């Protein structure tokens, strides 16, 4: 065939003027961008140095080793006002993680329940779930935090008239006080037994899977594992003489003494973040389950798989593939929203950093610490997501 195929013109000498060459133009635009950016950065750095010099602020991270001088309401690791700024930041980071992890667990449970509820055939359950989602999705989380903090927890009775719940749990405007377990001599054996039981369970589950693949025989995994995980620590616990006592809170005249107290700051933040994020998780779960085509269920039924097993073996694994990526970004959102702690005075990373910023004026250093911590969390999450996606993605041959 003699269709005149002209070779693509060589770059550079096709269209007469250099001005019309897209590549030349691209380089030109980028060069301009770089120049503008460099000038801007130079200007900013120059101004900042000048401003810092004028305000007499020494830049650098040396301040983390000086005495903090403020107290932190609630912390898992030891902290006094004599500790350093660095330790205060660490306390803040731990507190951020605590509220994020507890919030994520609770939000996931509520979110899955509500999301499945929205697909229920039961009209009233579906409507209640819909109402939950529509209410909590459309209200700012900060407002929900204040609702719990100054609306509900602040108007609870004083400590001496604390509401008493079963198991010596007291609820008052100082928070929730509950008996603190005191681990006596030999309790580490119980922990050890528990860890052994968990490890053994994993091995048994793997063995059972292989057994089923090889012979078709099913091993009663659930009951064995339950017996191991509950039984082994329990036997060890009793054998070592039950080394556990409780420090029970007692309602005093002005305050509760003894026991562990979870303050209203943590409670309001935790409840608000859980309820708020749960509304979004519910929508993700619903979309995920709806995203598994009906043909999958019908095919499973046609193969004679019982409805319950169909859900467990066919629908849920496919739905999880849709659910996990947006779910991870909701977890990240919850972690970022935990910075709202500053509004109620829960000492998270941002709140502690804000206090330090006000005391020392080290704005750039504190903000850079925030950036690094939150960006690391985001990066870790997205790495996990990529790994998970690669593992779960459809393998097409």
């Amino acid at each position, binding site marked *: 065939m003699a269709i005149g195929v002209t070779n693509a013109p060589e770059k550079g000498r096709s269209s007469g003027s250099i001005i019309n060459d897209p590549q030349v133009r691209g380089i030109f635009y980028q060069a301009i961008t770089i120049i503008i950016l460099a000038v801007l950065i130079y200007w900013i750095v120059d101004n900042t140095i000048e401003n810092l010099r004028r305000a007499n602020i020494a830049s650098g991270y040396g301040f983390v080793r000086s005495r903090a001088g403020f107290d932190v309401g609630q912390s898992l690791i030891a902290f006094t006002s004599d500790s350093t700024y660095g330790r205060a930041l660490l306390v803040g980071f731990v507190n951020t993680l605590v509220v994020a992890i507890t919030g994520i667990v609770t939000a996931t449970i509520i979110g899955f329940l509500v999301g499945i509820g929205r697909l229920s055939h039961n009209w009233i359950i579906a409507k209640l779930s819909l109402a939950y989602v529509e209410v909590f999705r459309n209200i700012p989380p900060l407002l929900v935090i204040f609702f719990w903090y100054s609306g509900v927890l602040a108007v609870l009775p004083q400590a001496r008239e604390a509401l008493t719940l079963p198991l010596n749990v007291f609820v008052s405007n100082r928070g929730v006080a509950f008996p603190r377990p005191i681990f006596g001599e030999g309790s580490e054996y119980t922990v050890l037994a528990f860890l052994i039981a968990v490890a053994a369970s994993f091995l048994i589950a793997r063995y059972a899977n292989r057994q089923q693949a090889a012979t078709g025989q099913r091993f009663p995994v659930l009951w064995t594992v339950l017996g191991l995980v509950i039984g082994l620590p329990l036997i060890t616990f009793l054998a070592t003489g039950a080394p556990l006592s409780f420090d029970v809170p007692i309602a005093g005249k002005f305050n509760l003494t003894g026991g562990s107290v979870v303050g209203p700051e943590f409670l309001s933040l935790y409840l608000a973040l859980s309820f708020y994020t749960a509304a979004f998780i519910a929508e993700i779960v619903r979309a995920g389950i709806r995203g598994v085509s009906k043909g999958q269920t019908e095919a499973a039924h046609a193969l004679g798989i019982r409805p319950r097993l169909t859900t467990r073996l066919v629908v849920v694994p496919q739905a999880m593939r849709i659910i996990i990526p947006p779910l991870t970004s909701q977890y990240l959102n919850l972690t970022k929203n935990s910075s709202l702690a500053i*509004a109620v005075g829960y000492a998270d990373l941002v709140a502690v950093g804000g206090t330090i910023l006000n005391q020392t004026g080290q704005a750039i250093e504190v*903000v850079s610490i925030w950036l690094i911590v939150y960006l690391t969390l985001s990066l870790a999450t997205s790495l996990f997501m990529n790994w998970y996606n690669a593992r779960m993605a459809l393998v097409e041959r």
Partner: protein
Amino acid sequence: MTTHEASFVRASMVEASPAPVLESGIVSWLRKNLFATPKDTALTIISLLVLAWLVPPAIQWLFLDAAWTGGGRGVCATVEQGGSQPEGWSGACWAFVNAKFGQFLFGRYPIDERWRPALVGILFVLLLVPMLMPKVPYKAFNAVLLLVALPIVATILLPGGWFGLTYVETPLWGGLLVTLVLSFVGIAVSLPLGILLALGRRSDMPVIKMLCTVFIEIVRGIPLITVLFMASVMLPLFLPQGVTFDKFLRALIGVSLFASAYMAEVVRGGLQAIPKGQYEGADSLGLSYWQKMNLIILPQALKLVIPGIVNTFIGLFKDTSLVSIIGMFDLLGIVRLNFSDTNWASAVTPVSGLIFAGFVFWLFCFGMSRYSGFMERVLDRSQR
């Protein structure tokens, strides 16, 4: 043909008999939707019990026992707390909301000048409503009025200082006024900026692509409150001595930049969903880059991601409440500020105020999400 008169053949149709009682009407609906299985029945009964336990007290508290009018904390406190309500009373304190309504709308804006934000608000509604109705003509003219004329009028009217209007400094602004101004500017800035960032992230030029990617990923990785802190603490450091920015303006910049990073990711999703043939088709017609984007790609891409865009708007609207942390009094901030008013301090004032603020936020967000659903259906129909 002869007709046979067979006795066993019917000469007329039989009337259709009604469906069995159990298969029609309310009984069947109940059986199918509430009592299909024993588990369903149990769930229904538990839900009904929970509702019966929660709803009547809630109605009692919100409406029947509520204090609707009054001039001070007396109407919202029991006799023991120094008020006029009987012992054991608890109910919403709407009198508080009623008395502070002007503040909730305008903050501490001087009372004599409140006609200015009110006028801007009325103009906003008058321009927005026809904009939102698909059938009303002159959309382009309307958009120019809403996005160009209105902001100019607002910048003259709200702060004042021109044409004999007294100057009202921004720390006095507050309430719904601040919430709406922040959201309006945030939306108006973040959409075009987000589109530019998304185009930049998909650009062929490596420098531009890297800059946009870094900006988007950093902003999306950190909480808004740190962005606001940066805007309020670090921005003054970056500027030469003597140049000061209004605090309100700094918050505006922070909120807008934050929202545009999220908007960029939404728009990028739309750009990626457009088939490659569309790009190549536009190229083969000889369109320039901006012609290609404006005429071919963006109209399709933006239509695809309307739900995502509106979700970002809703998120932005909710996020404006965070400015109360850096000491500005938006709707949430002004409601909380008034809790400390000794004239109104009572056990139920905070809850009532927060429920009111929550209801206002909810109304706006729910409205936006409903409108986006409506818009999706309208656009979908036009495509068919």
